[in-house]
């Protein structure tokens, strides 16, 4: 059983790492975004392998279902950068400097963990009174509304502020907004514009049927 899990872990880890490498090497931005989605999905599968069902599902719901869509939309709306052969933002010695700084920062985060972690050993039992590791949805929810209530609410306020800000930025001024009117609305408008309806048709002939064409200049002046 353990061997099977090791094999599955190897496959999923290869998927995650391979997809991550593809994200940074592929030239087409849309392809990079799609590889990133595959990477997110693999991370969700890893959570599932660790028996963290809720985290796995939330990973899929939030990252694959929402954030990746956001990324794809952002790429679509900035279409001019999607083509092949886009110039690199930095080149020459600046590229190597950037790479060195990134590697250094990553090492600062990862090296102490690698050195101090006791691999393949069960976690040491903490001092008495240490809470059990969080297991499921109920425990997570309870932690949110009792222990970490302040952080939870601050995060909520932050998200609300971001939402309001997005609406304010995206809000177009009414005067510049123009929607195509439906035929019924245009008909209504035409009736209102022709204030005194000029009935000059000869007696006996039926009045011309209202045309459903958009209002042209000549028509209004009649």
């Amino acid at each position, binding site marked *: 059983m353990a061997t099977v899990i090791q094999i599955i872990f190897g496959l999923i880890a290869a998927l995650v790492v391979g997809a991550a490498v593809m994200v940074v090497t592929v030239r087409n931005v849309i392809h990079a975004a799609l590889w990133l989605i595959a990477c997110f999905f693999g991370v969700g599968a890893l959570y599932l392998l660790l028996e963290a069902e809720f985290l796995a599902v939330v990973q899929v*719901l939030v990252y694959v279902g929402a954030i*990746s869509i956001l990324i794809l939309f952002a790429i*679509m709306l900035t279409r001019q950068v999607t083509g092949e052969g886009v110039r690199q933002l930095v080149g020459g010695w600046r590229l190597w400097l950037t790479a060195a700084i990134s590697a250094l920062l990553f090492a600062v985060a990862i090296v102490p963990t690698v050195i101090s972690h006791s691999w393949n050993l069960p976690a040491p039992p903490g001092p008495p009174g240490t809470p059990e590791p969080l297991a499921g949805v109920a425990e997570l929810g309870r932690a949110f509304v009792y222990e970490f209530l302040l952080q939870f609410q601050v995060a909520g306020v932050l998200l609300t502020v971001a939402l309001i800000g997005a609406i304010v930025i995206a809000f177009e001024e009414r005067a510049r907004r*123009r929607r195509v*009117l439906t035929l019924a*609305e245009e008909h209504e408008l035409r009736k209102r514009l022709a204030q005194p309806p000029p009935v000059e048709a000869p007696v006996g002939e039926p009045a011309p049927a209202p045309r459903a064409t958009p209002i042209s200049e000549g028509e209004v002046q009649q």
Partner: protein
Amino acid sequence: MYDIVNSLINVAFGWGWPGWVIALISHLAVTTLLFAIAPFQMLFLTYYERRAIARMQDRIGPNRVGPAGLFQPIADGVKMFTKEDIVPTAADKWVHFLAPCVVVAPTMLMFAVLPWGPGMVPADLSVGLLFFFAISSISAVGLLMAGLASSNKFALLGAMRAVAQMVSYEIPAVLSLLAVVMLTSTLSVVQLIEAQAGLFISTADVPGIPDLGLGWFIFTPVGFLAFIVFFIAALAEGERTPFDIPEADSEIVAGYMTEYSGMKFGLFYLAQYVLNFLLCAIAAVIFFGGWQGPGVGWLYAQAISPANPDGNWVFNVLAGFLGVFYLLAKTYAFFFVMVWVRGAFPRLRVDQLMDFGWKFLIPLTLVNIVSAAIWVALLRWGPEQGITFTQNWAPILRWGVAFVVTLAVNVGAYIALARIFTAAQAEQGRIDLDEYRDTLTATLR
């Protein structure tokens, strides 16, 4: 399924295989079965929809191939298989090829948590309900891939419309389910069904109610409002008619499917009908008790189950058949409502769609969550949670008070919101008209 395979291999044949092999075999068997069932559901639903919509439009519908036209979907499937597969020259080949797979795969995965009958669930996840909606949101990626890779403006427009619609209507759907989750305090689909035993009143709310399998959430005010909102959101997620703007054939050819032909088009079609089937089924499971119905609970009590290991296997079969019958009957009834709506309503405009989702359905579901909290406080909470005035009431009285209060809250919220919404929409139309006239007269003079 694990038990059946285990008893067959290790007890009957005495081979003594390890547990993980048996688990693998049983899961593969269930998966194969489900992969066989899904396309047949799609074939049947296309036939069902065409016949039903034909009746509503005073036609007969497909009636030539086989008895009463029953083999028409198979003929269509053969046609779809043998058609030429055309990929546009300007298309992004690999993304174009992968998009239908990314759309179909999540709909198949959603079967993993759908319970067909008592004890007949492929995987009883503790977060089954969330899994269902998390997986369903993946297909939006596939739609966007199809739109981007086709290099066709109709496909791109359709994909953008589809994704905007799916993202917007996921919120009311999930919020309406949150109310039900508050009532049951579980995310497991199996426990959700088990909480719906009873007769009009759930046995989980009032002990001692006779169990006829009819204690559905639809009979509570909270569940009723949640069902209405969920079903409208399901129509939007499944791109059914009042919300079928992503593939509005009179505006943008076929939306994201424009550049697809042959079996790839067939896969999109399959995904759509399977998704509709699943949405109807999950609506039946959450609000109409799934396999719950008169007789199933009694039959399953006699059968072999974890609670009753020395039951009779005949009752397993009977309970299974009756449960699947109830579930499918409810599902097809909902699908009929979808067809009925298609026959009755015209297509919405994009701005109407967004206004309705964001300004009407979401506030309604938020009010519904408040009334779910009232329901839980009146029915479940006691002195230890700080609710002292209900502790001497009989359970039936508590249920009655909770019913009346939540009904009043929900009906009041609906009336108030409907008045505000219609007034706002009328005002919006008037302002648009005035503005248009002003700009028009200004340009003319």
